């Protein structure tokens, strides 16, 4: 199905000369936050311009091939790194943002997280006030429990059940999903209800304009507000500027470029930041993994990627105690498997030969709830590009050690023949006692443990106290009159669950409120 571009999509890599565009609202980013905001604001009758650094690719372009999906649809070829290269960040960069490439796992914000935000950051939301917004976005994205488990997720359920550990079915944002398992490369059958297929077409119907391959470089201030956004067109590869500039002038600006992009744009623009908070408290849900070798084929690359989860250890020592974690399965196509398995040479070749029998589990570390978990910080390279540093301390490593042991315990309970960790010092272990003893001895150091993140949160914290928050309780910037942040960067801690539904929900509420105030103005 060839997709001819509608008139109101501009691929800026093709522009030959500078452009000037005016609108009511300019939205930077088209992911979970920006997509929902674009839909709401354009339906309210406002003229919306969306600015997206990534390309416009859609159903017919998605070929289930890692070789073209990662360079096209992700930041840094799905290999974005922290400054010390210790953490690999999988982050979408395309129209639809993370929602184009995520694994469709949807969770409401845990009660514990909301209570923590109320107590420590003055948030006023609770599950009751959010309920109507949840219902609205769950219907928009068709979010429903999906109890169709592939072999990988079945093993998680089987192991957790056998141990008597809590486990649940995951709700997913899909329609007529065919359980292919290639969500991470863009859904090739249009089943995933990403913002790419829902909100953005809705916004386009209401005359929104979408500018792709365009990087918002700087917010230009005049008085106490943003007058216009200076943007740089990028080449078709999408990393280097072509030299063509686009100026976007709007009454109001919505930042929705995510936990790295939104604070980086504020820093580049030198927005007022009297308490030095911008880009601080960046959370990653640092993720570690283990691999089981099963007797029967698992084919971990096929089937809906994540359909089961265990929260057995999510709050294992209370909300603010030792770091808890959420347990999930992951899809494992060969390119991702090859990088996640740290070994090299013959050992790596042998591990890869076992791929059809590998059953991977991950622990998603709930960061940000403890004094010793202040997260990372975003700063700028000399060329203005963002740089994320994330110090790794003993508090985190203790949690990771605990997580390795639990993941392997589930896998043995599920009938694994042998189990190993994604860690340079891990061997194959034949039973749980052996594995447990080995994990006790493993060095917990960067580059020994393979660390990943698929959820970047924080950096523009929302809160009631002006000395501890970048944006107020509606998401409005505290020192700029016409700037609202609508993305995962407003979270004061990590969520403790995959963050897409929390972002959709808060974006729906925030953008409705913004639409009302802009229409009255």
């Amino acid at each position: 199905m060839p997709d001819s571009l509608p008139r109101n999509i501009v691929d800026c890599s093709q522009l030959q000369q500078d452009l000037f565009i005016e609108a009511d609202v300019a939205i930077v980013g088209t992911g979970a936050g920006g997509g929902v905001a674009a839909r709401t604001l354009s339906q309210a009758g406002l003229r919306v311009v969306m600015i997206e650094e990534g390309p416009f690719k859609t159903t017919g372009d998605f070929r289930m091939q890692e070789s073209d999906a990662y360079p096209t649809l992700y930041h840094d070829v799905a290999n974005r790194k922290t400054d010390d290269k210790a953490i690999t960040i999988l982050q979408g960069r395309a129209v639809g943002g993370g929602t184009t490439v995520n694994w469709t796992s949807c969770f409401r914000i845990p009660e514990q997280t909301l209570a923590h935000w109320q107590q420590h950051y003055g948030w006023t939301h609770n599950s009751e006030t959010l309920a109507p917004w949840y219902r609205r976005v769950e219907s928009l994205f068709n979010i429903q429990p999906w109890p169709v488990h592939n072999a990988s997720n079945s093993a998680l359920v089987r192991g957790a059940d056998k141990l008597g550990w809590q486990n649940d079915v995951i709700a997913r944002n899909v329609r007529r999903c065919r359980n292919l398992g290639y969500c991470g490369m863009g859904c090739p059958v249009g089943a995933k209800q990403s913002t790419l297929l829902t909100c953005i077409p809705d916004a386009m119907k209401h005359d929104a304009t979408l500018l792709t391959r365009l990087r918002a470089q700087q917010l230009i201030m005049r008085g106490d507000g943003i007058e216009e956004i200076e943007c740089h067109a990028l080449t078709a590869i999408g990393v280097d500027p072509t030299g063509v500039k686009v100026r976007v002038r709007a009454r109001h600006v919505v930042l929705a470029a995510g936990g790295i992009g939104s604070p980086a744009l504020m820093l580049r623009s030198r927005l007022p930041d009297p308490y030095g908070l911008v880009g601080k408290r960046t959370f990653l849900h640092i993720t570690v993994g283990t691999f089981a070798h099963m007797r029967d084929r698992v084919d971990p690359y096929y089937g809906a990627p994540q359909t089961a989860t265990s929260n057995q250890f999510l709050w294992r020592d209370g909300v603010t105690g030792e770091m808890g974690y959420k347990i999930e399965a992951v899809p494992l196509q060969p390119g991702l498997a090859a990088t996640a398995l740290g070994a090299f040479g013959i050992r790596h070749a042998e591990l890869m030969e076992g791929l059809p029998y590998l059953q991977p589990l991950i622990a998603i570390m709930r960061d940000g709830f403890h004094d010793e978990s202040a997260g990372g910080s975003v700063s700028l390279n000399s060329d203005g590009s963002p740089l994320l540093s994330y110090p790794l301390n003993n508090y985190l490593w203790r949690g990771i050690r605990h997580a390795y042991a639990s993941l392997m315990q589930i896998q043995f309970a599920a009938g694994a023949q042998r189990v190993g960790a994604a860690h340079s010092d891990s061997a194959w272990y034949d039973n749980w006692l052996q594995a447990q003893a080995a994990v006790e001895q493993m060095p917990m150091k960067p580059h020994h443990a393979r660390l990943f993140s698929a959820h970047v949160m924080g950096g523009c914290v929302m809160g009631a106290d002006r000395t501890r928050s970048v944006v107020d309780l509606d998401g409005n910037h505290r020192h700029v009159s016409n700037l609202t942040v609508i993305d995962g960067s407003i979270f004061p801690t990590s969520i403790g669950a995959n963050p897409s539904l929390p972002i959709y929900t808060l974006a729906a509420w925030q953008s409705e409120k913004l639409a009302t105030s802009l229409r009255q103005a």
Partner: protein
Amino acid sequence: MLAGALPQPEREQNAAIEQIITGFDFTVAHFPPTVRNEIRQLLDLLVFPPTRVLLTGMFASWEKADASAVRAFISRWETSRFSLLRSGYSALHDLICGAWYVSPESWARIGYPGPPQLESR
């Protein structure tokens, strides 16, 4: 890095290596300038004889190095007490292993049948 993973016949192996190099370059071309520079610096260090000897322990040039010397270097970096060398290992590991295993030529050996066929397209 990929010992044991590539096809044995010399012609096929050379073709695989060509493909990995192409994939490596393709990936690097999609990195932002700061990361591209870091990769270039890493490769320069590996090629420039004084830094090569110092950092990898390999006295012979790359053309003349035998497999065991290369293996010793990779292993030394993998478990080095210097975080910088371990990160160099990770970069080479991910770029080289990634480039090979995203290509269909690698799949038969590991039993990956490839993406499912979609009959309706």
